[in-house]
């Protein structure tokens, strides 16, 4: 096994940058592509927020370019609003956040942190990216087909999704590509972590980020296939006129549907949520991993409760497969089965709390460095706390009767994903940027990005809890104007919209910083500018093909900061 790790032959432009099998290049491909999708999905949301804040008014600027089918005279049609809603969710989750967390950060960092030369199956890795891109293009193309993109929510419930416009079929095909990409990736991650960790890298010496990616990979591996099955069934319903999800006696626009009937609407919901619940843990677990790395590095002391955090993560992953029907409390299920899912849902909140608590306790007594990545990582903690706590009334069947499908739900999950996961993503970008490019991002621009983002995230999502408690339903094109119970809280829509636009402005320093720093950022003076203990900082900057000149040996755990008697305040894992 003592081969040279450097690859000395020259590769063509195509093999090196486009059809690369190097995990770092693939990670960058995922990162750039997914950030573009994230921005696009953000744009879709801004359009929706305009309509909610200023219903029936022409959209300024872009209104005239949206087309007569979508926004005649620049005024958004309800059909277009529905497309925006379904595609915003789909794109953010499946084309933005997960590809960044797993495809970009996971691919780039995991082999490095393991001391490995690459992923276990480099060609499969490349295939995963291209299939992902194919899925993404399919989703984008759907905006231009007759009837526009999918418009039945990201959850695509039948019977509506079964009879919806052509875009829904594109959604299904796109999802099949994305699921395939994820499955191939999951196989790669698990095999890499189990097989390619370097000598001395025992399981309990993994950086928490690696544990997070391992558990996430299992979630993707085992939870996605049922949605693939469901997607095939919905495809059959739409294209071959089967009735997997269509019960008998359906009448659409006064006409009975000419179908065999006998299908089950709830079958879709069960299969969809069987994936979609573990999917939300896919959205948060790698983010917790990123936050743990950055906090450990910037408190200059070991993480408190590393073992508890690891066991909590494993328990969380297992439990996530048996809670899904808390999304289905209002489908008519009986009280016993609802109680079962309520119980498992309450139990699953415990490991999340343990992980969050350990991260909080870790701060005590630390020598905290408040650089930009640390600010985002610290902000993650209370934001995820709010997101998680607001989930409790939703996980309990009784209050969920009132809160289901209201803006309360939107507030809850956005708190977890937006000032939660996306903040972790920002933190990760600022943190690992120097290793990838050899330059630091600008700190001033970083602060200009962080503080307004933090403020406006809360301004956008906190009022939604108020609206939800008042009973305002989600997915309403006019924001609830026709409902008496919504009148008192409707003025909040304008405020949320204005804050959403300020949130958008706050991202400009980040975009400028990211691009400018790639070329003109302050060059780092060492391979380990953050003085970190984990192995990705033990490579040259940027790491070459093969990563390590010689496979590193690991002698200690991942967070040996301020070891008594050591000459410096950090002791890298590969230092004997």
């Amino acid at each position, binding site marked *: 096994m003592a081969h040279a790790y450097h690859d000395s032959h020259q590769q063509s432009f195509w093999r090196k940058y486009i059809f690369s099998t190097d995990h770092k290049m693939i990670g960058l491909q995922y990162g750039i592509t997914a950030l573009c999708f994230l921005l696009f999905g953000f744009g879709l949301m801004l359009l929706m927020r305009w309509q909610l804040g200023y219903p029936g008014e022409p959209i300024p600027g872009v209104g005239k370019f949206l087309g007569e089918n979508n926004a005649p005279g620049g005024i958004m049609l309800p059909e277009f609003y529905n497309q925006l809603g379904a595609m915003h969710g789909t794109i953010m989750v499946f084309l933005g956040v997960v590809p960044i967390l797993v495809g970009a950060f996971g691919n780039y960092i995991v082999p490095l942190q393991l001391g490995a030369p690459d992923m276990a199956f480099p060609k499969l890795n490349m295939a995963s990216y291209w299939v992902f891109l194919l899925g993404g293009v399919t989703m984008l193309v759907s905006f231009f087909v007759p009837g526009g993109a999918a418009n039945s929510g990201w959850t695509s419930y039948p019977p509506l999704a079964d009879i919806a416009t052509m875009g829904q079929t594109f959604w299904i095909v796109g999802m099949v590509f994305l699921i395939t990409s994820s499955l191939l990736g999951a196989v790669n991650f698990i095999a890499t972590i189990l*097989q390619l960790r370097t000598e001395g890298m025992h399981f309990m010496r993994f950086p928490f980020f690696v544990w997070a990616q391992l558990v996430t990979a299992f979630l993707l591996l085992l939870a996605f296939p049922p949605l*693939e099955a469901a997607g095939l069934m919905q495809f059959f319903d739409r294209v071959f006129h089967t009735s997997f999800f269509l019960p008998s006696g359906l009448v659409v626009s006064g006409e009975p549907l000419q179908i065999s009937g006998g299908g089950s609407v709830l079958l879709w919901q069960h299969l969809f949520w069987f994936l979609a619940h573990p999917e939300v843990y896919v959205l948060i677990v790698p983010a917790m991993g990123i936050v743990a790395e950055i906090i450990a590095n910037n408190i200059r002391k070991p993480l408190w409760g590393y073992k508890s955090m690891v066991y909590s993560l494993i328990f969380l992953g297992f439990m996530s497969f048996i809670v899904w029907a808390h999304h289905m409390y209002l489908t008519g299920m009986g009280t016993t089965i609802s109680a079962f899912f309520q119980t498992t849902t309450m139990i699953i909140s415990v490991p999340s709390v343990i992980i969050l608590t350990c991260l909080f306790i870790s701060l005590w007594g630390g020598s905290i460095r408040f650089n930009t990545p640390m600010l985002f990582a610290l902000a993650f903690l209370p934001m995820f706390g709010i997101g998680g706590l607001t989930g409790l009334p939703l996980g309990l069947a009784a209050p969920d009767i009132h809160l289901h499908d209201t803006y309360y739900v939107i507030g809850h999950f956005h708190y977890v994903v937006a000032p939660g996961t996306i903040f972790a993503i920002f933190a990760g970008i600022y943190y690992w940027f120097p290793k990838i490019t050899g330059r630091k991002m600008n700190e001033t621009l970083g602060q200009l990005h962080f503080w307004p983002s933090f403020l406006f995230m809360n301004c956008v999502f906190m009022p939604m809890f108020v609206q939800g408690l008042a009973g305002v339903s989600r997915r309403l094109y006019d924001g609830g104007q026709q409902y008496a119970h919504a009148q008192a809280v409707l003025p909040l829509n304008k405020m949320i919209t204005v804050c959403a636009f300020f949130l958008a402005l706050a991202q400009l320093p980040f975009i400028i910083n990211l691009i400018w720093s790639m070329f003109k950022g302050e060059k780092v003076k060492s391979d380990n500018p953050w003085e970190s203990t984990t192995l990705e900082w033990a490579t040259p900057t940027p790491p070459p093909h093969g990563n390590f000149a010689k496979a590193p040996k690991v002698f200690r755990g991942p967070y040996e900061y301020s070891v008594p008697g050591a000459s410096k305040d950090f002791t890298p894992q590969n230092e004997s």
Partner: protein
Amino acid sequence: MDNIPYTVNVREDTGLYNAKLGIWLFLASEVMLFGALFSSYVLLRTGAGASWPAGSSILHVHLGAFNSIVLLISSMTMILAWAALKEKNFPRFKLNLGITILLALLFLGVKGHEYATKFEHHLFPSTSTFMAIYFLMTGVHALHIIGGVVVNSYFWGPGSKMWKTDPEHFTNRIEIAGLYWHFVDLVWIFLFPVLYLL
């Protein structure tokens, strides 16, 4: 090729080489895929109650049984192909793998004939949920057979060159292909009785 360790030799603590772990991970996900399809069958049939037809009243049991035997024989020849490589008998490997591929094509041919007769009798997926789940599950299974044919054909043809340069790596690849093939057979072992016999 990158210098990825454990592509041929096993890693001591896991006792596995990378592809072995990889294929079993993939098969675990396939358990969930076919598991979801079987779960759907169970839910749809339970909901339909007495109106669900007996499989044998619509499907040709003898054709299904014939196909089952074809697939079982192909599982045999697949493992004999691997065993031949273990005994360094390349011609016997080629013979057995070749028979495996031909049997798979025979399976597909019979399946195609079954589908054609269904269509001739105006039995389409849209006719009933039973027909829908029949076409879907056997269709997804058939796609997996096609995938196996493609992979096996590659190893029978251009891929077999590796026997000369790296026989151990090649033998491992055939073992992996065999595991996939046995899984496809395993799915049919449950699919046939559930759809045709119950």
